[in-house]
């Protein structure tokens, strides 16, 4: 026996998808924009120590993975020692409810580099990138250092595409 679907049900299914997109996408987008990095000073003197602060949204539980610019050295962090792991230029922070993470890096005598980062909220499953920034030592040419194209994480348009795809699958099932 063939299964049929009423117009009202079809409407409900479509509305549910739209509602899902409306409700979820802004939340994900908000979390993406809320993980931010500040660098002080933005243009360091040669061998100057710079303080970097990553702020996260309230209730963030997850990892922050920072990749330091080539030539810049990790100087330390105020984050609890059991929540930090460094390997080469990669520094990983485990955030368990803290509002921010601060650490220090030392600039080289000259030159510039790109700092980049990724984050994942293991509580919500949200993930994304912290915008790349060029750090140039005073007197150096920042144009020598370029940011690489943004690699999409689980950003809003990916979510939208995914929901669109699910919608198509549902529609095909319904029309069958």
């Amino acid at each position, binding site marked *: 026996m063939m299964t049929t679907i009423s117009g009202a049900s079809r409407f409900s299914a479509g509305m549910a998808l739209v509602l899902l997109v409306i409700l979820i996408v802004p939340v994900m987008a908000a979390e993406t924009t809320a993980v931010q990095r500040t660098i002080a000073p933005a243009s360091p003197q040669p061998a100057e120590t710079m303080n970097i602060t990553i702020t996260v949204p309230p209730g963030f539980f997850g990892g922050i993975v920072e990749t330091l610019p080539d030539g810049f050295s990790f100087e330390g962090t105020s984050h609890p020692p*059991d929540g930090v792991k460094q390997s080469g230029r990669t520094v*990983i922070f485990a955030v*368990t409810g803290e509002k921010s993470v601060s650490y220090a890096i030392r600039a080289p005598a000259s030159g510039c580099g790109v700092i980049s980062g990724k984050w994942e909220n*293991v509580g919500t499953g949200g993930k994304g990138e912290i915008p790349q920034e060029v750090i140039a030592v005073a007197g150096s040419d920042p144009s020598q250092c370029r940011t690489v194209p943004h690699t999409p994480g689980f950003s809003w348009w990916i979510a939208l595409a995914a929901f669109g795809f699910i919608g198509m699958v549902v529609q095909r099932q319904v029309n069958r």
Partner: protein
Amino acid sequence: MKKQTSSIAFLLAGLLCCCLVFPVAGISSEGIPRTQDDIHDYARTILRTEILNYSSDVYGGERSAHLTAGQLADAVRYYPEYPRRITDSKNSTITIVRPLNHIVAYNFHSMGALNATDLVVGVANSAMQDALVIPAVKGKVNIGGGGPYEPDFEKLLACTPDAVLTYTELGPGPEFFEKRMPEGVPVIRVDCIRPWSLVPEMNKLGYIMNRTEQSDAYEQWHSRWMDEIDRRLATVPSEKRVRAFMDIWSTSFTDRSNERRTAGGGQWYSYGRYITDGGGVNVAEDLTSPQGTVDIEWVARQNPDVILGVMYDGSYESPDSSVLKTQYDELLSHPTLKEIPAIKNRRVYVLSYRYTNGLTYPAARAQVAKWFYPELFADIDPAAIHQEYVTRFLGSSYDVTRQGAFSYPA
């Protein structure tokens, strides 16, 4: 339509489904948190470690054991009460990310005293022997087996356990449990039958089952009696220590009447310790035979003051202690032993193994110490200690002086 919608819902639910618990091997023990603050602090430490390992693996390319994304999400959901972590008695690290409430307790020994029977869905057939003192066991799924016997694995799986509690050595090994359990269902191996590990094992279980109040209470009770026995035995000079032979009784051995089974000091089993814990000297202390088999003539040559029997029978379901009399009578009537002091002075005593091998050990130990040194322990009533355990920890009205077989002569 309903079918299609439910299929999609099922698919989405499957995608969202998280595993509950996850065993991580090879991580060293970090002790057992006791207070609420300690539990929260340790949860933060575990979570940080797991987030670092997860992030290192996913974003740094460094392979290491860690919780899955779904397990981390659960851990965050129940934080700061969870995650919780122990090193079990088989030295496996067990991490629990959410409250356990669907345990198959193949080893059921601790569940009554921890007031955790409500967390148990399935038990071994052997646990049914405790029904007289823990009636709740009758409402659990009997998966069969018990002790050295294998349970029905399909029945076990049908319980959809979130953890399996079993022994370190007794019963099925990793091939049966660990390698066949669904991912995320830890197999926790503790015994709660050996004198030296009762308290640490209870504390570990109390912590991961969220029953620390009960495990603390057990430790206090256990320590109170063990310390009292220690204090009294410390006054016995070494030259006045009784020399005792441990007779482990089973039909297969006694059928061969020229052999007995005993326990030396180096054996993993605890029986030899029952003599030394009672302030005696084990005449078989230096025995290295793994089976503990000795010739009856050898026993006679040791000339023991006391024979302490342990019988694989008795306990709560026995109507009275007459079952233990079998071993007692057999020893007293053995022609080869008739000239030794233990027989001539009728200093032969028998304990049920389920009295000694379990959480009632302080009472059983008091009984042995009193048999060895009656004057020193004249004011100690081992049955009263036992009754205190039954009443206070099992919440049972069972009267150990009127029912059961625990020691003979009683």
